[in-house]
């Protein structure tokens, strides 16, 4: 009897475990299900929160009717071509781990039966997730991964709205060149020998290593001396040896590609080691998050970061100002490069589904390849969204562009980003050299 009881209890426990593994009940058919995979925990969790809020706001706008917002998706109360079908976002957390990302993509595709995927921020995770999407023939739109390789793989189910690091890094060297030519507002022409020596430290995954490659490429092309490059782990808890190594190279310009926690640690260590280059430039990501600003305060005045969105854009783009107000009411922060791009990524999804008028993957694929969203509908200062369908870069938005901002102290004492590049849209004089700590 005792043995029977024991066997029965084992059976019940096993049945319970198997029961937990059954799929969650399918959602109703009236929804467009988009799986959204972002880093909601881990070193880039702060950026993940921004990305999530941006995508959620875009979905809210698409599902509602906001007559005063000059966006097509704000007028339809859902997908008009599908009888007002609503956008339903299913969020997943990849922790910055490519393996977890691939598993989540399979789950979204096979269990949750999503119609498409948006994500994933980390280029390394985007790589594994897009490979799963390609295998299953499920469309994926990427709004915020900037490794150039991602659109050079010939994938037919992958589209990227953001410009990539080749463009962004070229922008940096154009700014440096502009400095030597006296084109930068508020700075007299700087002799090239004063800013000639560069050193770069990038995080050691797909994204950071590609940024390093791009820096090497353009340093050669623009005839700068790249004296030191190093890769470091973004989860590192101590970067003092890296900083000492950078400092030993005596660079005029320090270049970084960092996620949030490592960007903060890098800057703190630079300060502790009293490293004082003339220019510090960050490749977006960690250098642009509210945590970076809030944690480091006045120490970041003079630091440059590339981005695709700055609060100053609202002065020249009405739609950006309207969306920014909504975003600020929701989160307490201004839109950033991360949130503006996730917003634009989901907005592109809405336009694609509207054009396809269907959730059949082949129809979505056709629509994505033919889509053209005008720049005046976007919150980011791009000419629009139009994907390349030929050549080496399949699925890359050819109408994107970047900005370079500099942290400056406003009259009210707050530290905010001002646009210093492109030269025709600058909003303030550039602070040069970096004032130090």
């Amino acid at each position, binding site marked *: 009897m005792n*043995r029977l009881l*024991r*066997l029965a209890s*084992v*059976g019940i426990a*096993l049945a319970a*475990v*198997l029961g*937990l*593994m*059954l*799929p969650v009940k399918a959602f109703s058919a009236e929804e467009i299900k988009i799986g959204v995979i972002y880093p*909601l*925990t881990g070193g880039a*969790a702060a950026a*993940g*929160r921004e990305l999530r809020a941006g995508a959620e706001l875009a979905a809210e706008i698409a599902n509602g009717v906001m007559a005063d917002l000059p966006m097509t998706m704000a007028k339809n109360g859902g997908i008009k071509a599908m009888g007002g079908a609503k956008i339903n976002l299913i*969020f*997943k*957390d990849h922790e910055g*781990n*490519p*393996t977890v990302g*691939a*598993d989540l993509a*399979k*789950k979204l*595709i*096979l*269990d949750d039966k999503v119609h498409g995927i948006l994500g994933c921020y980390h280029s*390394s995770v985007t*790589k*594994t997730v897009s*490979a799963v999407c*390609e*295998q*299953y023939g499920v469309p994926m739109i990427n709004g915020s991964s900037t490794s150039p*390789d991602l659109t050079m*793989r*010939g*994938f037919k189910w992958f589209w990227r709205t953001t410009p990539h690091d080749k463009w962004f890094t070229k922008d940096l060297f154009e700014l440096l060149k502009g400095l030597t030519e006296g084109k930068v507002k508020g700075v007299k022409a700087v002799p090239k020998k004063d800013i000639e020596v560069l050193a770069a430290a990038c995080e*050691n*995954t*797909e994204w*950071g*290593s*590609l940024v390093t490659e791009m820096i090497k490429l353009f340093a050669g092309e623009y005839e700068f001396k790249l004296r030191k490059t190093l*890769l470091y*782990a973004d989860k590192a808890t101590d970067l003092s040896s890296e900083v000492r190594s950078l400092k030993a190279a005596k660079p005029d310009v320090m270049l970084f590609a960092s996620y949030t926690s490592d960007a903060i640690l890098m800057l703190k260590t630079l300060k502790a080691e009293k490293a004082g280059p003339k220019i510090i430039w960050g490749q977006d990501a960690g250098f642009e998050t509210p945590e970076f600003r809030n944690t480091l305060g006045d120490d970041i005045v003079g630091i440059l970061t590339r981005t695709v969105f700055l609060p100053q854009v609202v002065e020249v783009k009405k739609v950006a100002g309207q969306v920014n107000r909504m975003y600020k009411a929701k989160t307490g922060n201004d839109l950033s490069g991360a949130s503006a791009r996730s917003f634009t990524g989901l907005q592109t999804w809405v336009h694609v589904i509207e054009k396809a008028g269907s959730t059949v993957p082949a129809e979505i694929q056709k629509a994505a390849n033919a889509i053209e969203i005008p720049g005046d509908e976007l919150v980011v200062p791009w000419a629009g969204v139009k994907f390349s369908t030929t050549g080496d870069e399949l699925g890359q938005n050819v109408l994107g562009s970047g900005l370079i901002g500099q942290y400056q102290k406003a009259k009210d004492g707050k530290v905010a980003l001002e646009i210093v590049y492109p030269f025709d849209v600058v909003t303030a004089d550039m602070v040069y050299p970096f004032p130090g700590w």
Partner: protein
Amino acid sequence: METLKNAVDFSDFPRIDLVIAGAVAFLFLIFPLFSASSFAMATMIQFFMFSLYGMGWNTIGGYGGQVDLGKAQYVGIGAYTTAVMLLRWDIPFWVSMPVGMGIAVIWSFIIGYPLFRLKGHYFAIATIATSLVLKDLFTVWSFVGAARGLEISPITYPPPDYMRLIFKEDIYYYYLILGFFFLGLLYMNWFRKSRLGFQLRCIKDNEDMARSLGINVHWAKIKTYAIATAFVSMVGSFHVCYIKVIEPVDIMSLDLSILIALMAMLGGAGSLWGPIIGAGVLIPLRSYLKEWLGAAAGLVGIDLIFYALIIMIVSAFEPRGIWGIVEKVRRRKRR
């Protein structure tokens, strides 16, 4: 013949254990027939992979008492060997996997020889160091893709491909890793009753006494370490075919090394079932806590808090792991 008999002979376990093990094995075999969830399938594949990693760790860490926190380097060697051989020379998995195991074993001899002169914490720290050094080397070695790693593109290698192990459906990977799992289990059953297995337990209990009995302690540890690495490398080869993208930061991370050791220790180091129980508890727990709570608005990260709490409670309650709890209960009943 004797080896085979030892491998399939589980008669020293209580009958209830064998009944449960048989029922679970049967459930593993029929699981894909009843599970319509790809997430459950992926979780099960992860469970088998970590069980095998844990079995490897258990040889040297559990039976031998040498805490190894550098297993990820061997996962990397297996994964990279398979990926490089496939991408550069189009050599299929079934050839590259044993080659990877061979390279891992050679590497284990190279570092094992000096490493086993160390004891206790010094040995554990040294294994972490070798693993991190290898990871950093791979991060800058362009032949293996450096920090960007390697990708088995679904366009270049369309599924299904039985030789290169490229499938679209997880069910193929499931039965393959299940096969490896059963083979691993039989091997471990043989190992614990083998001469080397007894020598190791003796070394764990009292190294000086083992030496006085004529056991070549250093050589026994090195041999066992090689066995452990072969296990781990085999699963590493499988891992790259399953995920199709590898980066040194991901596949050779310290997190992975610690997770392998943690699962075996939490399940019960030095027992046959320990690593399986550890993986069986921690993998579904991690996956499903993340699934239920991981992306919930306002609760992001709470899954990790629960996960850590459960590990702490088990460790505080019984440091010998879950299998230790089972044995404690049994001893009390016997009294």
